């Protein structure tokens, strides 16, 4: 037996197989049963490719505009494009700082794109060993959510770097074609990212193998526990790093307003990277962030925090080792009052709540410690309260959603005296799920969007609609299914995140892409690919079961909402894209795109509804009693009269004004009449009926009764319109609700909406 064994060769071997392991994860996944197999990744690949190619085309197009000499000169008031001015603008002293900025812009784009792209990826891989009690606190603690955003997502996405494999050659071609240093920065950044990624992943895997091979079990545990703690620390630093930056700085040093308008993704990045503190320069902050996030998160978050704890670390009080090790602090423990010990035990049992409770005061402390003198007075005031609220929502709602079937300890802790009351509430599990969902999704999005200065209406509409569709009523979403999923060991920890993915996916798809059709197309396809491709994971969610024989019988609802939203996003954006290609007028294109896309989506969705074997979706015209149809003219008259009165009496009435102030500012120019007519006159009522009556009302009715459902759905609909339309929309909503209730089909309501809207548009 040859004996050339030494440390270097061992590390080399581990590294080699580490790379192999890492690369293999490009084509294989580990499903929920822990079986590794070649994944049906083709749809995802196409999505990634398309998103990458198209997203980058549009990015570069935007950047071309932003960097075109003529516009730049105009923007900078440098006069006409004279040779001197051009030379000045393109001189190294001018270009070089821009290059650096562009580099960071590209990097930031990279990071955030990855975050968005990778939302579903962690779900699709069963990285957590089901029987490992230690991992439970990780999988349920809101850190998981935040870790996704701060590190894990990026890491995961980097691990699946198809995106950049596609992007890189294309960007190189573009850079060659443009022959400008600026265009080389993005491919350079990507290349660095790719290499870093492959190296870091391989190092991570090799490190893990090294730990396994070289250390005793006890040492392994120690090293991994320390590393896990370090990972957590790094996560915290990263998280606060994100919070530590100010959009204003970006805005002032780097004029990318055009990019901002044309690529909401970048706006998203800039703004997300933005908040609060002007002490650091942007380069330093971003550098820090990039290094911390890309490097450390890969190494520590994934390989150590996640995998590291797969050995019995003793961190979890339930682990057998912990029980053996615990008595070291026994005396101190016994000196505590009984009551406190009980509470602490609860905290310890559900460790995430301890962290969660810790996170909030830390957040407060962070804000309090921030030196006020360091703030730029021209910047908006610190968003202390909203930040706090957001944090609280995330901290509280996510565990509530995820661990709803267990004792919600934070509730116990906050209200430890009236326990009988909490017992009662605990039995109302569904209530908490619904509440958590309702608080979390729209709440977080609204707050975020308000402070991020994105278009709140855009987000709000879909956030509300989808969150409600996703979470509201029993028939719409099978909450009991989710609960039952949560209650089995195998699926419990995936239920919450999977639920969130399904709810958030289309929202993300539509919103993050913003007005950027290329990106949206790719993202939608990607999302579809993730859901369909990884149907192993989504098997429990009925619509994605590809084998109908094994499908559980679930009422239609969640699935239909998701499919509808997905279709809508996809088709709207594809059409938008084509219209834009031929029209070059973005605002018109947007309207036309939405219009045609929405129409096609509706037709397809309607077709889908018709062909699906659902029991609750009314589809028989023969069911209608003609007496019920008499309601239509009656209600229409009432609505028209009410609408007219509203128009006369309350022209400037504003409902929930604060929700709209940004929106009002944005819609300065009136849209073209024909498409407005089509959109508001036909598509609007169709979509509204479909979502608010067909899904929300129908679901809410079975749970809360007719009147609550009717008013609730109508009120929700008003949120998606301008405040000035509050009255008419409410009236139409109520009338449609009554009509739907009586006739059991949506079309009379649609008809009412169409007639009413057409009359309003032309007469009022």
């Amino acid at each position, binding site marked *: 037996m040859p004996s050339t*064994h030494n440390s270097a060769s061992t590390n080399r071997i581990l590294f080699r197989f580490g790379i192999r392991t890492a690369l293999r994860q490009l084509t294989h996944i580990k499903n929920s049963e822990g079986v590794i197999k070649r994944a049906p990744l083709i749809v995802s690949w196409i999505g990634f490719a398309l998103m990458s190619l198209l997203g980058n085309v549009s990015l570069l197009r935007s950047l071309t505009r932003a960097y075109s000499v003529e516009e730049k000169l105009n923007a900078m008031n440098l006069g006409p494009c004279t040779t001197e001015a051009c030379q000045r603008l393109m001189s190294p002293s001018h270009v070089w700082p821009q290059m650096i900025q562009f580099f960071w812009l590209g990097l930031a784009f990279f990071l955030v794109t990855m975050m968005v792209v990778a939302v579903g990826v962690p779900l699709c891989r069963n990285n957590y060993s089901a029987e490992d009690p230690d991992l439970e606190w990780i999988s349920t603690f809101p850190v998981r959510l935040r870790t996704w955003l701060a590190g894990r997502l990026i890491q995961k996405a980097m691990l699946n770097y198809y995106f950049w494999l596609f992007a890189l050659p294309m960007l190189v071609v573009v850079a060659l074609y443009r022959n400008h240093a600026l265009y080389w920065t993005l491919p350079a950044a990507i290349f660095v990212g790719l290499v870093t990624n492959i190296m870091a992943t391989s190092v991570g*895997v090799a490190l893990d193998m090294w730990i396994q091979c070289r250390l*005793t079990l006890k040492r392994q545990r120690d090293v991994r526990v320390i590393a896990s703690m370090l990972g957590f620390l790094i996560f915290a630093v990263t998280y606060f790093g994100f919070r530590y930056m100010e959009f204003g700085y970006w805005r002032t040093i780097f004029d990318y307003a055009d990019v901002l308008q044309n690529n909401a993704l970048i706006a998203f990045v800039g703004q997300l990277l933005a908040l609060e503190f002007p002490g650091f320069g942007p380069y330093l902050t971003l550098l820090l962030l990039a290094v911390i996030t890309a490097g450390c998160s890969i190494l520590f978050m994934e390989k150590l925090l996640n995998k590291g704890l797969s050995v019995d670390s003793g961190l979890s009080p339930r682990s057998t080792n912990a029980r053996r090790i615990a008595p070291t602090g026994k005396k101190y423990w016994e000196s505590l009052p009984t009551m406190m010990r009980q509470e602490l035990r609860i905290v310890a049992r559900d460790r995430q709540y301890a962290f969660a409770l810790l996170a909030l005061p830390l957040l407060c402390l962070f804000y309090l410690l921030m030196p006020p003198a360091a703030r730029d007075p021209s910047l908006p005031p610190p968003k202390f309260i909203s930040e706090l609220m957001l944090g609280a929502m995330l901290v509280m709602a996510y565990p509530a959603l995820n661990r709803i079937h267990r004792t919600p300890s934070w509730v116990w802790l906050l209200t430890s005296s009236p326990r009988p009351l909490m017992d009662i509430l605990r039995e109302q599990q569904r209530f908490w799920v619904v509440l958590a969902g309702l608080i979390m999704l729209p709440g977080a999005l609204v707050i975020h969007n308000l402070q991020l200065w994105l278009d709140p209406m855009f987000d709000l509409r879909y956030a509300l609609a989808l969150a409600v569709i996703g979470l509201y009523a029993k028939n719409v979403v099978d909450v009991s299914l989710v609960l039952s999923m949560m209650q089995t060991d195998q699926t419990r920890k995936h239920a919450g995140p999977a639920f969130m993915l399904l709810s958030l996916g289309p929202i993300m798809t539509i919103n993050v892409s913003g007005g950027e059709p290329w990106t949206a197309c790719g993202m939608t396809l990607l999302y579809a690919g993730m859901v369909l491709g990884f149907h192993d994971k989504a098997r429990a969610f009925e619509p994605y079961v590809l084998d109908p024989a094994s499908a559980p019988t679930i009422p239609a609802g969640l699935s239909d909402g998701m499919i509808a939203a997905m279709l809508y996003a996809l088709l709207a954006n594809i059409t938008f894209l084509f219209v834009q290609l031929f029209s070059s007028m973005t605002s018109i294109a947007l309207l036309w795109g939405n219009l045609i896309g929405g129409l096609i989506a509706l037709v397809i969705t309607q077709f889908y509804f018709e062909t699906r074997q659902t029991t609750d979706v009314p589809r028989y015209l023969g069911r209608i009693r003609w007496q019920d149809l008499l309601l239509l003219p009656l209600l229409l008259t009432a609505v028209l009269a009410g609408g007219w009165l509203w128009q006369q009496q309350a022209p400037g009435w504003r409902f929930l004004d604060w929700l709209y102030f940004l929106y009002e500012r944005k819609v300065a120019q009136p849209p073209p009449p024909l498409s407005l007519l089509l959109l508001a006159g036909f598509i609007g009522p169709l979509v509204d009926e479909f979502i608010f009556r067909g899904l929300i009302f129908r679901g809410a009715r079975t749970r809360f009764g007719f009147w609550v459902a009717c008013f609730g759905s109508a009120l929700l609909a008003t949120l998606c319109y301008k405040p000035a339309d509050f009255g008419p929309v409410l009236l139409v909503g109520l009338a449609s609700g009554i009509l739907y209730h009586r006739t059991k089909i949506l079309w009379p309501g649609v008809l009412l909406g169409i007639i009413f809207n057409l009359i309003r548009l032309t007469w009022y």
Partner: protein
Amino acid sequence: MISTRNLSKNFAAFSAVRKVNLEVPQGAVYGFLGANGAGKTTTLKMLMGLLVPTAGEASIGNLDCHKDRLALKRLVGYLPDVPQFPSFLQGREILQMAAELHGQSTRDAKRRASELLEWIGLGMMAAEFADNYSIGLKKRLGLACAIVHDPAVLLLDEPTNGLDPYATRLIRNWIGEMAQKGKTIVLSTHRLDFAEHVCSHLGILHKGELVVQGELQAIRQQRAAGAHLEDIFFALTGAEDAHAIDS
């Protein structure tokens, strides 16, 4: 070949292994018997240098099991009770990696891996991911990993657990061959019939203590001539339990 002196291991207040003095002569097939939780796996892990003894010493050949644990791994092959392998690597690759880690060249390692996989009956499954193996197949692969460097000493933790009768017989015959070649084998098992067939020496652990050890024949004659191993085992590890089961 293998000896321990007052080897003990505590997990906090719980003492898993208490003052065990093993003596395994070279070329012996040493059966390590005991009920669940008797301390067999813990002892094997300490012999392998994976756990640090709370007290006492253990050595294999001239090597201290803790201080020289890296060198020890060249001398000893170890089959864990539940073998675990890196995800996303195929059985063949894992075996090849193990061989390379033991200092074989890539080409030798590949050849050796193929031979072993054929021998152990994993030839058809060589290109499958080890994570996808059943328990029995994992055990086979673990065994292949343990012997890939042709070690002089083998520590086998439950080698037949999860194996089908064919593989069990294969292992049994192979252990006999290894013993004839002068290899020292320590195996822990619950299967008394298997131990009876295979082992030349025996050690019975009961609640962390070694209640008896020596040559199988000698133990038999000590207790009662021609006695079954099962009777001896129950007599030594708690007759009342056996009676309770019988009744």
